[in-house]
């Protein structure tokens, strides 16, 4: 006899597919934010599951900060092509050149500058919904997210005044200029993501796996040696066997020393880990409410 029971991943999967189809059903001009990172790789597979055998009914959008790991961009372009998906890339460099984004004196990080670039792309294409791969377990401001997260015409998140979200009935109604951010992976944990990658045999960028790389010790973590912020004479530089756990910009992504060479290794490593995934992101550690502040300004 069949048991009519879904396991944990099947459960998360059907929830996410339902949400994606709600987006396709309720919005005129949706887009999917695809960075090439592990969460958005899962999103793409879920989009295939939601919409095949049709073409994906939404383009992929990526904001290129100019500080991406080169491995990530190569993977992003290749994956979009494999899927026959339309990929739109908007670059922070271009926004700086045109004056649309203004770096403060001495501001090297592209963390803040990517926000106006994203908002400009939403405006340019008149996207009314953007699907993103953020998860509630990443960070405590994100733990407050809805599946359908309303943003006003300035792209702002108002966490004190979110729409109630009851059962699986999502309210997607918008007035002109409003925008919805949609997070199908809200209920997924880091382990769930890797178990799904294993189950679906998804390719991920090589930097998630153990490799040898020159690293510089900075702010209590190992960062990849890079040309944007090269090592200063007083800094320690080492050749280490490392991997990334979460991918941000090359100047702020902490690397963990790890021999994990396969997805199985990564799953075992996370089970034994003593710090959270975002513990390796300098951009989150900037202050007590760094993520909340960025989200209020229009970040994911």
């Amino acid at each position, binding site marked *: 006899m069949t048991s009519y029971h879904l396991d944990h991943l099947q459960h998360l999967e059907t929830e996410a597919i339902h949400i994606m189809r709600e987006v396709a059903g309720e919005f005129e001009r949706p887009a999917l934010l695809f960075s090439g990172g592990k969460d958005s790789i899962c999103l793409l597979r879920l989009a295939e599951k939601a919409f095949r*055998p049709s073409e994906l009914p939404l383009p992929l959008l990526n904001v290129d900060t100019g500080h991406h790991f080169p491995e990530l961009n190569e993977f992003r372009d290749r994956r979009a092509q494999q899927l026959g998906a339309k990929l739109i890339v908007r670059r922070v460099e271009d926004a700086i050149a045109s004056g649309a984004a203004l770096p403060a004196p001495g501001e090297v990080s592209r963390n803040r500058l990517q926000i106006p670039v994203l908002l400009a792309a939403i405006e340019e294409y008149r996207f009314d919904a953007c699907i993103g791969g953020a998860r509630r377990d990443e960070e*405590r401001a994100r733990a407050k997210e809805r599946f359908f997260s309303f943003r006003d015409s300035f792209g702002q998140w108002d966490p*004190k005044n979110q729409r109630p979200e009851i059962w*699986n009935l999502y309210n997607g109604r918008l007035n002109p200029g409003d925008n919805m951010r949609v997070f199908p992976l*809200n209920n997924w944990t880091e382990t769930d993501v890797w178990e799904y990658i294993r189950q679906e045999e998804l390719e991920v960028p090589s930097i998630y796996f153990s490799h040898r790389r020159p690293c510089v010790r900075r702010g209590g973590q190992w960062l990849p040696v890079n040309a944007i912020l090269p090592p200063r004479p007083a800094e320690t530089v080492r050749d280490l066997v490392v991997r990334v756990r979460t991918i941000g910009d090359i100047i702020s992504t902490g690397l963990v020393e790890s021999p*994990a060479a396969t997805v199985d290794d990564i799953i075992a490593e996370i089970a034994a*880990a003593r710090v*959270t995934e975002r513990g390796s992101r300098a951009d989150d550690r900037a202050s007590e409410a760094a993520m909340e502040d960025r989200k209020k300004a229009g970040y994911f």
Partner: protein
Amino acid sequence: MFTEEILAAPPVHVPVGILRFNTCGSVDDGKSTLIGRLLYDSKSLLEDQLEALERSADLTGGGAINLANLTDGLRAEREQGITIDVAYRYFATPRRKFIIADTPGHVQYTRNMVTGASHANLSIVLVDARLGVIEQSRRHTAIASLLRIPHLVVAINKMDLVGWSEARFHEIRGQFEAFLPRLDLQDVKFIPISALHGDNVVTPSVRAPWHPGPTLLGHLEGVHIGSDWNLNGFRLPVQWVNRPNHPTDARLHDFRGYSGQIAGGIVRPGQRVLVLPAGLVTTVKEIWTYDGSVPEAFCPQSITLVLADDLDAGRGSMIIGLDHHTGTGTDLQAKVCWMHSRPLERGKKYFLKHTTSTVQAVVTELTHRLNIETLEPEPAPAALAMNDLGEIRLRVAQPLYYDSYAVNRLTGSFILIEPGANATVAAGMLLPARAAVKPEMGDFII
């Protein structure tokens, strides 16, 4: 950092089953502290989270860590020491996975409590042992009952502040038991705890030898989780019509599938189904999924159904099995939880979203309002104010195909949306329909 030894360790035991629960009760009863305590004592916190907790203790708590800061993730929450919106946390013990919704107690944010509770299999209602049962304790218990959450735990908290008095525990338990018969709750458990000090949360308390157990976590790990889903009548609300319109591939050129998440029952190829609102009967030709055709699919799987005949169906249509028909009608009776500061009144118009269809609705009658003091219905109120629970009648512009909420959560629930502002103003639970659907024609023949 990570040794070879760890990587070579046998795969961790995968816990079976997920329990989704939420904490509720009045403001400051200790809900967030309790969640923090659960995570802390079950060793679910990692080093950077503990460090962050200690950092914020130095800034705001004069050195003592504040466990509520783990879920109070917004700056305004930490500054005011209250929870504003639901926070979701994920943790696992060797026996089970848990999804926690820490919901706010403040009456102003009841809508967020409803949000967190609507997915729960179990609700923990906290009561401050000094205050006993107060209005918010009753309101949240009534909401849990209305949402038909199968299990309730009444955690009588801050027992340290009443000297672990067994008499006080029984007094509060008595206050609860006095009104529980007026609600629809099957399984209620009472546990005396101190969230702040950890008694009976993860470890049994030495200060309450009169409590035979279990601890809260012990109960959460052991409670029976039944299926949330109705497997009796097949229902597929159509979300999206899948039409590749492929220019060259002949098979894909003609492909037309109805994509959706099964909201009830089981479906197999060859099965006869009724397509609504067209009212036509046809046969399931194929259950298409990305991973190949399947011989069977069930609630709540997401599938794409290919039918034997080309019919008029689209988003908002419902495909159902012939064995259990849905109810139908334009005159609906429902229980509602009102969530907006503009009151619900007779004659007001809203959008009603039910499964995948959104229709216009007008309120035709306010049948009753639940008095939270007595938990008795008061007939014919003039309005339902924010946070009121009641029963109403609505008329909708197109017939709805639905079940009662008691029979099927997915096809028996709706939300009301206020036109213009687009706010979600009510959660609705449908009462049984007076008529069932009937197919217009026996067989569909082209």
